[in-house]
C-alpha cells in the first residue's frame, strides 16, 4: 500500500476559506514526494495556514477534487500524519507539564479510551530528549521559553511516530539555538524517509532549511526546487515590489 511511488501528500483543485463564497486559497494542486522537505512560503495573508488547515479538515469550507495523505484519505492515515499548529494558537497557561503535552502525540493511535502503556510513555520521553528537553519533562508548559514550547510541539509529533509532518510556522519567533536544533531534527526525519511540509515566512532561511518550496499567493505562483521557486520574477509576482530586498540572495 505505502509504496514509495505514492506521494506523501497530494491535492488537486483545492479551494477553501472560512466563509462561503470567499475562498482564501483557490485551485491548489501539488504533490509531495516521500522523503521531501518543502517550505510553504508567501506573503502575509496569502493563505499558507489556511491551505494546510484545509487539507487537514480544519477549515469550514473546503472543496477539492482530491486530497490524499500517504495515498489514502485522512481518516485512514490519521495516526501517520502529525500536525503541529502555530505556537501562538495554543493556550500556554493550560495546566500541563511538557511531558503531558508530548504524550498527547500518542492519542491519534490510542483514541479516547485505550490506556497509555509504559513502553509508549517511554516514546514520549525519548521524543522530548530528541529535541533537547529531557530535563524539562516535568516543567509547567507556561514556564518554558517560546523556543522550548515550539520544541515541545515538535516532540509531540515525534512521539506520534508519523510519516508525514505538517508544521505551521515552526521557526516563527524562536531563538537561534532552537532554530538550528529544530532544523537538525527535521533534516534527521527527512533522512529517515519522513516527509515534511512547513509554513515558513523568513525568505532568507528557506534555502538553508528546505529542499523544495511552494510559493503561494492565494493560488500557487511557483513550486519545485527552492532555487527554481525563489526567482526575482516569482517573488515579485507574489510579494510585489517590496520583496526585492528579501530576494537579494538569488545567486
Amino acid at each position, binding site marked *: 500500500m505505502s509504496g514509495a511511488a505514492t506521494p506523501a501528500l497530494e491535492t488537486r483543485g483545492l479551494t477553501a476559506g472560512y466563509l462561503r463564497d470567499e475562498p482564501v486559497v483557490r485551485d491548489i494542486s501539488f504533490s509531495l514526494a516521500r522523503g521531501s522537505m518543502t517550505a510553504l512560503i508567501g506573503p502575509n495573508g496569502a493563505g499558507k495556514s489556511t491551505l494546510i488547515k484545509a487539507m487537514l479538515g480544519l477549515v469550514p469550507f473546503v472543496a477539492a477534487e482530491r486530497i490524499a495523505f500517504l495515498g489514502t484519505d485522512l481518516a485512514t492515515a490519521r495516526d501517520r500524519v502529525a*500536525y503541529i499548529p502555530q505556537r501562538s494558537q495554543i493556550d500556554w497557561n493550560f495546566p500541563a507539564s511538557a511531558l503531558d503535552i508530548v504524550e*498527547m502525540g500518542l492519542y*491519534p493511535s490510542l483514541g479516547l479510551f485505550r490506556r497509555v502503556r509504559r513502553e509508549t510513555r517511554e516514546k514520549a520521553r525519548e521524543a522530548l530528549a530528541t529535541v533537547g528537553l529531557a530535563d524539562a519533562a516535568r516543567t509547567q508548559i507556561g514556564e518554558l521559553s517560546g523556543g522550548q514550547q515550539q520544541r515541545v510541539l515538535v516532540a509531540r509529533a515525534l512521539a506520534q511516530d508519523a510519516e508525514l509532518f505538517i508544521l505551521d510556522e515552526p521557526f516563527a519567533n524562536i531563538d537561534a539555538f532552537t532554530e538550528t536544533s529544530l532544523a537538525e531534527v527535521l533534516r534527521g526525519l527527512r533522512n529517515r524517509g519522513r516527509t515534511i511540509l512547513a509554513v515558513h515566512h523568513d525568505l532568507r532561511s528557506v534555502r538553508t532549511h528546505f529542499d523544495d518550496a511552494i510559493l503561494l499567493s492565494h493560488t500557487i505562483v511557483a513550486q519545485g526546487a527552492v532555487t527554481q521557486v525563489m526567482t526575482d520574477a516569482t517573488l515579485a509576482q507574489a510579494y510585489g515590489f517590496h520583496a526585492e530586498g528579501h530576494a537579494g540572495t538569488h545567486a
Partner: protein
Amino acid sequence: MTASAIGANTLGVLAGCMLFGALAGAVGTFVLARRRALVADVAGHAALPGVALAFLAGEALGLGGRTPWLLLLGGAATALLAAWCVPALSRLRRIGPDGATAVVLAGFFGLGAVLFSIVQGHPAGSQGGLRTLLFGSAAAMGRAEVVALLALATATLALLILFLRGLTVVAFDEDFARSAGLPVRGLDLLLTLLLVATVVAGMQMAGIVLVVAMLITPAAAARNLGGRIGRVTAIAAIVGAATAAAGVLASRAIAGVPTGAAMTLAATAAFLVTVPYAHFARGARA
C-alpha cells in the same frame, strides 16, 4: 418542610452539597480551561423558565408541581437550549460571542421571571418562593431532592472521569484534537451536558443566579495554585466541597442568609486567598 424534618436530613443535605461542590469544581475546571465560564452563567439563569414550565406541567399532569425529577428535567431542557443558542447566535458576526451571551442570558431569565409569576399565582406554587430558587436554599431540600442530587452528581462525575483525556486535549489544542481524529464537536457537547447537569443538580442548593460561582470560582482558585490538570481538578473539587459545606452551615447558622450566597462568599474567599500566590509565582517567573 418543617424544621425537624430538615434536622433529620442534615447529614444527607451536607453529603449532597459536598458532592455537588466537588462535582462543580471538577466540571468547572474543564469549563474554565475550554473558556466557557460564561456559558455556566447562561445555563444557570436559563434553567428558570424550564423549572417554571416543569412546575406547571407537573400540576397539569397531576404529578404535583414539586416533582424533583421533572423540575431537573425542565431546568436542564431550557439550560441546554440556551447553551446551544449562544454559539449559534455567535456565528452572526455582527453580534459576537459576548453579545450573544448577554442576549441569551437576559432573554431566558426574563421569560423565566414571567413564567414564575404565573407559578406563584398558582395555589401549590406560592409556598415555593422565587427567592429560594434564585439564591438557593439547602433548608428547602427534602429527601427526594437530596436523592436526585446524589444520583445526578454521581453519574455526571463518572462521565467526566471517563472522558477526561478527550476533554483535556480539546481544551488545550482544539485543532490538534481534530487532526488526531478526536470527536471535538461531540466532546464539546459532552462538556455542555456535564455543565448543565451540574447546574441543575445544584440549582436548589446554590440557586440559579449564583450556581456559576460554584462551577468557576473553585476552579479559578485551583488554577491560581498551578500544577497539572489532574492536580488542578482535585484541588478545585476539594475547594468546591469545602466551600459548599461552609455555605450550608453558614446559612443554617445565620437566619435568612440564602445558601447560594453563603457558598459564593466562601468560594470567593478561597479564591482571594490564592490570588497573591498566583501573583508572586508569576513574578518569580518573569
